[in-house]
């Protein structure tokens, strides 16, 4: 474990807070699931927060981000309002998508977050398209595209990466390698040396890192974000992590030994970040205050979402086609 005492405290306290917020948001959502308030499936990213905070947290607000079914952390770190997110998970008015999308389609276009996706790997080509549009606009935004290790076995992975490399597009591809694709160990069904080697076969510079060490993630992300912004070429970050929960909020994940999970908790990115900041001399009062603030924020979010009204059924017929409104037959 990285143990630098000369940490930039303000910077890493901010990352730490972001990780705490992500964890708290998802634990709040899981509580909502237990209470029947979250309606559809949710895929928690508990254990993977360092990647969301370290990458998405360093993007500019006008940069673009595309995410996955496991996208709450990316969305929050990009600047989305957690209350709007919780309302969306509860299917209520004031949700980011007006209750039309839910967790798997969470999006906040106002902060450049162009959507989670219910289809594994689908966002890789869409992100590439957003970057192609930026190239046409000629500005200096970049696109960050998250996907899981399992997504590297889908065709759009090849088509999107090749395209981004051929057209010199400003995309940072981030593979969150949590070792699992649903109930299956990804390594069992993925041939070859891994995601970074696949990226390299398209001539895309790729880096593999410990995705549970916020200092490592933050440094790699900063470098790659800057490089993509300057060079206008894709880059690839392969971040190893572990999914501490089941695949969905309802999955007990009995297909893996309890000891493995206990072991993995030793590597919890938030505990590691806390240890680093402790070692750097941050006072425990600071953490207590931060914990309280985050808890208060998410409690308010939960209550507001629970109190929010359902979408008006008439709203359900909007946002389809300008040319003809849908008719109920």
């Amino acid at each position: 474990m990285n143990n630098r005492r000369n940490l930039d405290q303000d910077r890493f306290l901010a990352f730490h807070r972001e990780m705490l917020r992500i964890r708290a948001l998802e634990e709040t959502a899981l509580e909502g699931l237990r209470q029947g308030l979250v309606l559809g499936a949710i895929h928690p990213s508990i254990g993977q927060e360092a990647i969301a905070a370290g990458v998405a947290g360093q993007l500019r607000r006008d940069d673009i981000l595309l995410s996955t079914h496991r996208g709450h952390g990316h969305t929050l770190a990009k600047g989305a309002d957690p209350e709007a997110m919780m309302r969306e998970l509860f299917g209520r008015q004031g949700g980011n998508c007006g209750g039309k999308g839910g967790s798997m389609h969470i999006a906040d276009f106002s902060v450049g977050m162009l959507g989670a996706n219910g289809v594994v790997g689908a966002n890789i080509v869409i992100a590439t398209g957003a970057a192609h549009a930026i190239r046409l606009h000629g500005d200096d935004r970049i696109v960050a595209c998250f996907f899981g290790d399992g997504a590297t076995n889908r065709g759009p992975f090849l088509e999107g990466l090749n395209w981004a490399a051929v057209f010199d597009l400003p995309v940072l591809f981030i593979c969150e390698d949590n070792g699992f694709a649903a109930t299956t160990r990804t390594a069992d069904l993925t041939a070859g040396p891994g995601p970074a080697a696949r990226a390299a076969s398209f001539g895309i510079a790729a880096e593999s890192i410990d995705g549970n060490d916020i200092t490592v993630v933050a440094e790699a992300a900063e470098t790659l974000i800057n490089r993509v912004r300057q060079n206008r070429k894709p880059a690839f970050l392969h971040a190893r992590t572990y999914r501490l929960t089941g695949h969905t909020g309802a999955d007990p994940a009995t297909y893996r030994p309890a000891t493995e999970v206990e072991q993995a908790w030793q590597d919890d990115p938030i505990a590691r970040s806390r240890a680093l900041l402790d070692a750097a001399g941050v006072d425990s009062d600071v953490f207590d205050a931060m914990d309280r603030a985050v808890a208060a924020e998410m409690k308010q979010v939960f209550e507001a979402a629970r109190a929010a009204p359902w979408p008006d059924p008439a709203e359900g017929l909007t946002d389809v086609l300008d040319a003809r409104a849908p008719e109920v037959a």
Partner: protein
Amino acid sequence: MAEMTYAAAGAAALAETMDADPTVWALGEDLGRGGVFGQYAGLEARFGAERIVSTPISEAAIMGVGVGAAMTGTRPVVEMRFADFALCATDELINQAAKARFMFGGQTRVPLTVRMPVGMWRSSAAQHSQSLEALYTHIPGLVVMMPATPADNHAMLKAAIQSDDPVVYLEHKNLWPMTGEVPDSAAPYSIGTAGVAREGRDLTIVTWSATLHDVLAAADRAAQSGGADIEVLDLRTLWPWDKARVLESVRRTGRLLIAHEAVVVGGFGAEIAATVAEELHADLKAPVRRIGAPRLPIGYAPTLENEIKLGPDRLDAAIVRMMS
């Protein structure tokens, strides 16, 4: 006779065909764990990982491997997890599986079963809820089947696997836990035959998949209220559909309503409506009508999902309208 769930009936059908025919095998994501809905529960333990194959997240390959393996002396059962994801393998299904027999002049057969769970289920929203049977009924070379009960899931899945032509086999996610009698020694299901789920004199309702149960409930309400004596036909196979049976019924009742969960516009109900309106033009006491989903992606919040679902109110109103 055994009482079992729709999911277990599917697993039993697969197990029986695998017992009887060593060339039958299944492939799809997470099958080793029993599949997302438990519809493969226990099969890996029984048949081994060579015949119950857990695959990478590679829908194009899952389908394409199914096609190639079907042309090479095996009977693959391909699992698409959600019908929505089958859209990641459309070329493999429509351009390859459906056409190989014909375009190679009968040199090969493609005995492939493609299972695609459909339907609205627990706020699954736009990309996990679609009923897309109409895409496949339009495609030459494909058989399309949609079982509505445990017994049918058992008999029909066996028939699908034994078919020498590719079958798109759509199970409804809301039906997985439904229990029912599954006869041990039922006659084999004959592809293309509808079931008479309820006899009646005043109105024929043609339906399929989970909607059958909503329609049966509505028919009971109509009987109770004295509104109408309704005949309910469960189409079971959409292509080839049981035209003779439907025409016979509508000739008697003079009225036809088609009810399905899928979008009405361009849904398979249009084919039935157009056919019956043409063939029985002079015999109809009322115009043929269709009821189903608006042309609208499926929303997440229940208030939005309910706008799309065929609830009791919409069904009852449609029946009243048919009889008035």
